[in-house]
């Protein structure tokens, strides 16, 4: 059933001078050993870590770093999976007055080198052998790096480099220092000021080299407070931390809101089983990029296709009812009694179980952010009664500035500003934001700071407008908006998200800016289409081959026709091509947060682009693809172009 806010008026005041570290100390003193701060799934059970354990680990890491030579303001970089140790290291650095920097675990060597070098990182905390190898490879070009700290000893037995030190050793050093100076840790915490820099966050950037945004304690705290004012969490809530810490959204939940409220943070056993682990925990709140929700919808759709007829029929009926109720809710119209009863039956027959499968049984608020999400996906979750909301924000404003309110959700908007936040639209449509969470500036990049931060207003670079209800509507990045042949402004992302609602299509790239017609480059979902092909006895050996099957083209064209139905003539998709590979962040086609880098793909797939607007039926491709380990291989292939009947 739809669950509203719990509406508890918890007071989230920030006393002057409060820092993340002081808040951490306060929460430790409040909860102590009586409350579980985090859990990590290990060897089949969720091992609890109380606030006391949390505090003690952070203290020893912090003191250990100090005895290794950490000075206030020094940068400590972290790279690795979501594990308690990562969070401890981050808190340890912050408590000692250091600055935390997180790197995406799947960053290629070049990116790691750039960030480590640019941020003047003194200590790098890596999870295990993989991270240590990366660090050892780049240390030559990062002269400021002093120590590489590792945590997981697997595979590190024969690593005797003097630069390496284990987290355990660091903690031992910390214990030693504590014996010499027992009050040092609390003294360090009390020395912190709220305007000190706490985190240095590199924006993934759809456009250029990553820029490091400096966020203060106050930025992080005020963001957490304002978010909690809208949707309060409870100390008894569960939250699952499975998205990269290098994503501001995860910091928002795990650090800001987590410290503020004191809910339990749960760490999955391995990234591969995160889905199952989320289901076990059944979190109360969740913040993930659209991709994650899209994947959920896809799973449901695919499983639905394979279900038995009775189950299919019940599901279809329940979804229809749910959609009708959700649509009325979106339109703020009263739901007739008959429909409300039908919806309750649908909940009992289908949604309850469906939410259980998705791990959403206990969810109070689910948030999506980082990219646009299609209306179909939104409707899907709301018809299940999941209170899914859009968050809009940037790293530069500590992650969030605009948010949907319960009961006021419009899936084409991102909601209204959170408390203490002002939103303004410039004359040419750019979104500006002002709040206590706006960052200090970019690290070592005066010029970028000057153009982004003017009089306390953050220039987002996004275009949008404020609608009649006061909701902010965000177009894409200014240059991502397209003009159709009839002169109308149109968002390609809107089309892409619509297309991606089909379970067979994983990714899409819409082209049509100032062109005669709209075309699409489609990446099929290998698993789903592969299964579909198996059932029809179509032979294929690889993604490129499967994607070029004429039957697959017909399948995709049917999906696109479905989307075309609701579009004006100028916005209809005329032609499409199935790409021979999926878009990948390793090929720079997507950002690490999996946004399409339009300018880049346009350049990379120039041949396809040209062919789509010529009268040809195939296009020859000759490109390189990069594997995860950095190897590059060449692909030569012919791609089919299919025209849709309109």
């Amino acid at each position: 059933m739809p669950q509203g806010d719990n509406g508890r008026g918890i007071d989230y005041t920030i006393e002057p001078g409060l820092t993340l570290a002081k808040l951490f100390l306060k929460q430790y003193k409040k909860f102590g050993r009586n409350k579980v701060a985090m859990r990590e799934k290990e060897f089949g059970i969720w091992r609890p870590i109380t606030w006391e354990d949390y505090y003690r680990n952070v203290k020893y890491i912090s003191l250990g770093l100090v005895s290794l030579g950490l000075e206030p303001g020094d940068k400590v970089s972290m790279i690795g999976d979501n594990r308690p140790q990562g969070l401890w290291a981050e808190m340890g650095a912050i408590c000692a007055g250091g600055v935390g920097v997180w790197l995406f675990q799947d960053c290629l060597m070049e990116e790691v080198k750039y960030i480590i070098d640019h941020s003047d990182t003194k200590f790098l905390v890596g999870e295990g052998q993989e991270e240590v190898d990366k660090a050892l490879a780049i240390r030559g070009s990062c002269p400021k790096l002093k120590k590489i700290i590792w945590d997981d000893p697997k595979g590190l037995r024969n690593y005797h480099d003097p630069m390496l030190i284990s987290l355990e050793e660091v903690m031992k050093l910390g214990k030693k220092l504590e014996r010499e100076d027992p009050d040092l840790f609390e003294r360090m915490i009390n020395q912190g000021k709220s305007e000190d820099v706490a985190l240095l966050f590199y924006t993934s950037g759809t456009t250029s080299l990553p820029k490091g945004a400096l966020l203060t304690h106050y930025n992080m705290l005020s963001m957490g407070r304002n978010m909690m004012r809208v949707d309060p969490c409870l100390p008894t809530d569960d939250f699952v931390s499975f998205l990269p810490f290098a994503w501001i959204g995860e910091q928002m939940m795990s650090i800001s809101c987590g410290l503020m409220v004191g809910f339990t943070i749960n760490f999955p056993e391995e990234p591969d089983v995160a889905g199952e682990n989320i289901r076990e925990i059944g979190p109360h709140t969740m913040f993930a990029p659209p991709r994650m929700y899209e994947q959920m919808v896809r799973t449901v759709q695919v499983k639905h296709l394979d279900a038995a007829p009775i189950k299919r029929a019940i599901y279809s009926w329940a979804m229809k009812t749910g959609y009708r109720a959700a649509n009325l809710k979106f339109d703020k119209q009263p739901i007739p009694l008959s429909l409300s009863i039908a919806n309750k039956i649908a909940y009992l027959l289908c949604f309850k179980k469906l939410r259980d499968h998705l791990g959403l049984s206990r969810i109070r608020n689910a948030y999506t952010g980082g990219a646009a999400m299609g209306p179909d996906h939104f409707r899907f979750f709301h018809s299940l009664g999941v209170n899914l909301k859009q968050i809009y924000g940037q790293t530069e404003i500590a992650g969030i500035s605009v948010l949907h309110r319960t009961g006021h959700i419009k899936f084409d908007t991102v909601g209204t500003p959170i408390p203490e936040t002002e939103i303004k639209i410039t004359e040419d449509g750019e979104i500006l934001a002002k709040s206590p969470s706006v960052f200090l500036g970019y690290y070592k990049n005066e010029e970028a700071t000057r153009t982004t931060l003017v009089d306390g207003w953050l220039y987002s670079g996004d275009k949008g407008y404020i609608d009649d209800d006061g909701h902010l509507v965000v177009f894409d990045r200014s240059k991502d908006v397209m003009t159709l042949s009839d002169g109308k402004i149109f968002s390609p992302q809107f089309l892409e998200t619509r297309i991606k609602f089909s379970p067979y299509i994983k990714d899409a790239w819409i082209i049509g800016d100032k062109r005669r017609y709209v075309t699409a480059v489609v990446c099929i979902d290998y698993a789903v289409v592969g299964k579909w092909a198996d059932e029809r006895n179509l032979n294929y050996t690889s993604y490129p081959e499967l994607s070029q099957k004429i039957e697959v083209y017909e399948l995709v064209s049917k999906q696109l026709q479905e989307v075309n139905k609701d579009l004006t003539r100028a916005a209809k998709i005329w032609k499409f091509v199935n790409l021979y590979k999926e878009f990948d962040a390793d090929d720079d086609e997507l950002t690490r947060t999996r946004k399409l880098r339009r300018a880049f793909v346009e350049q990379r797939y120039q041949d396809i682009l040209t062919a789509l607007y010529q009268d040809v039926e195939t296009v020859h491709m000759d490109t390189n693809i990069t594997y995860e380990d950095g190897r590059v291989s060449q692909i030569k292939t012919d791609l089919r172009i299919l025209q849709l009947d309109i």
Partner: protein
Amino acid sequence: MQAYLPCGVYHQQYSEDHAWWQTKFVWGKMILLGVLLFVVFPWFGGYYLGIMNSIGYTIMGALGVQLLIGFCGQITLGHAAFIAVGAYTSALMLLHIPESQAFWAVFLTKSGLLYPVSIVAAGIVGGLWSVLFGLPSAKVKGFYLIMTTMAAQFITVDFVITQYVAQIGGRGQAFSLPPGTIKIGPWEIDSDVKVYFLMVTLVILMTMAVANLMRSKTGRAWIAIRDNDIAAEAMGINIILYKLKAFFVAGFIAGVAGAFWISNLSAVSPEHFTWFWSLWLVGVILIGGFGSIHGTIFGSLFMVLVMELLQVIVGVLTPWFPSLSMNFLFLKESLFGLSICVFLIFEPNGLSYRWWQIKNYFNLWPFSY
């Protein structure tokens, strides 16, 4: 098989992870079952309680067979022999100990502990006897083991018991138990309801014991032996020791079942423990499903209830076909054969598999996987 848990159920301790009943829903179901077993069913009349008692007896008998065949892979066709050993051990103790004037004998008789003690003794003797006939399993397996266990049946029941044990005390073939012999404490087991309570208690204890054994080191070793004895030995399992353990536990359960069954009989005689009963128990677990405790219970329910139903049908049809009731035994055996054939063809994994599928059908709702 990992139990299906709903979203939001997680464990911080291994003890929680290992708990039998992990959700309130399951607790609710179990409490309901307890109410049914201890409060509702006893209200049923003697006829129904009689049926339930034979179901319970079948469950206890089949549990040992399940343990040997379904969990340890040691095919046995002589299980009735161990039940007989238990029944005779208990009966002999009940008949002879009260005659003795020794202090302990008087104490046991007066305190009403004699029957409970005899149940345990029956279990131990049954277990040891079973180990004796389990010894060949060190050398032979599969088909040949069937032959040696059949030998156990004939040697034990048709030779040792009929010719020697049944002659003790010169009572002739059948040992009739005088009323008032079977007592637990002050509580004389003289009615179907009392037998029923004894049955439910024993079945619950036995089932729990076997279920817990199956998730211990011993149980895992048995399963390893069943799946591949050579691999199990290579893993360091002393397969002879574990096979004999399996024989002991199966014999123990059989002995207890036998000792229980005499409470329901007015006289104990070798005819109660024929080779056909051994075969019947194998049929029960085949229909219920190998390697499943649920299966043991389902199989017992199925076999007893179907046979009762057959009797009812025959009773109804007798006015028209008088020969039916005369040939009832023949009918019963035909139906037994027929059900085994049907199950082997259509549901070779037994009723427990069907149960699992039904549960999955709803657990996976609204999907199929």
